[in-house]
């Protein structure tokens, strides 16, 4: 997923360093800022939407896992269903993103983006069928 993206980051390293706004060293924060800028420029909004969904899934999964680890795992089946849905959906969305990314066209010759999206939709339906039944 991050493979084709990282090539653009290397090309954009020659930009001027920016002022630090975090507790990181100037070099680190500079690298992060450059990476962010390159990402913003190089990624299409379609891929950015998918990335937003991925971030949402990751945060949701982390929040559920923290609750289970810190507070209680009392309705364990509920935790498994929720966490499983986050992880499963993340995997499906990540595979969709890699198949839809035009920079990966060479690897997915026989899979059209419409076919990738159909696979994604079908996988999501099956995943949520199991998740819903496991929720209890």
């Amino acid at each position: 997923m991050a493979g084709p993206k990282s090539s653009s980051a290397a090309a954009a390293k020659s930009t001027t360093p920016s002022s630090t706004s975090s507790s990181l060293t100037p070099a680190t924060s500079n690298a992060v800022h450059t990476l962010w800028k390159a990402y913003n420029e190089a990624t299409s909004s379609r891929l950015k939407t998918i990335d937003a969904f991925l971030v949402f899934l990751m945060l949701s999964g982390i929040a559920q896992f923290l609750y289970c680890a810190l507070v209680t795992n009392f309705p364990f089946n509920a935790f498994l269903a929720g966490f499983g849905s986050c992880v499963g959906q993340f995997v499906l969305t990540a595979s969709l993103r890699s198949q839809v990314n035009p920079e990966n066209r060479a690897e997915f010759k026989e899979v059209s983006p419409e076919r990738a999206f159909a696979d994604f939709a079908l996988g999501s339906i099956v995943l949520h069928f199991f998740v819903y039944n496991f929720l209890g």
Partner: protein
Amino acid sequence: MSILSFCLLSLLVVSGTDAAKLSLQSPRFTISSSNATQLRAEPISLAQQPAPLTLGLTDVLKLTFQVIEKDEGKGVQPHQTFLRFYDKVSGEEGIQPIRVTPAGKAKFELNMARPPTSLPPTTSSDPLSVSLLLGSFEYSPVQFDMFDIYLPESQPAPQHPDEATFHPLPTIVHTFRAEQKLPPRPISATFAALVLAPWAVLLGLTVKLCRDVAPFTTIYKGWGIVRPPKKLIPSTPLAQA
């Protein structure tokens, strides 16, 4: 059939009335201690039982008698001669066969230092009633109650391995797992908000994407990159389908 039963019945009646009786002549007992000093010696009266005997841990009881025919008085060797030790309270009994000479004389010795295995288990408070059982083909069987004896306490009767199955078994007590406790409401509410917060993040990001680029519908239009806004300078060549 009826003739046969009549004959058998008459035979029984005849045998009952005409069978001779057995009796004991000069039954005596002697209790002596381990160093042969005599502690007690008495004749046994069949009409009235003697006072209950007591045997210590090392004492010896000697019993002598002669089996005779009641009417004629001659010695008889019965086919079966048993000494029965019976505990009325617990119901345990022990049978000790006694050897009788052809003349009818019998001698029995009970050494508490080496007790016979036929003794029943004894308790310290309850006596054993000792009786003599005589069985014979020619004479009618007879039981003589001789005396009561207090023996030293013995080990209790061993319990049969299946004994427990003949009584109600103890009630089964279940230990259930403790009830699952819910966390306190504030913590629960905090984490509920934390788990639902990513929805707000997603909404915010989508709105931002819509604002930065063209209207929402154009994000999914076609294959490849939508034209970026003019303020961003593209640094890499963008692939076109």
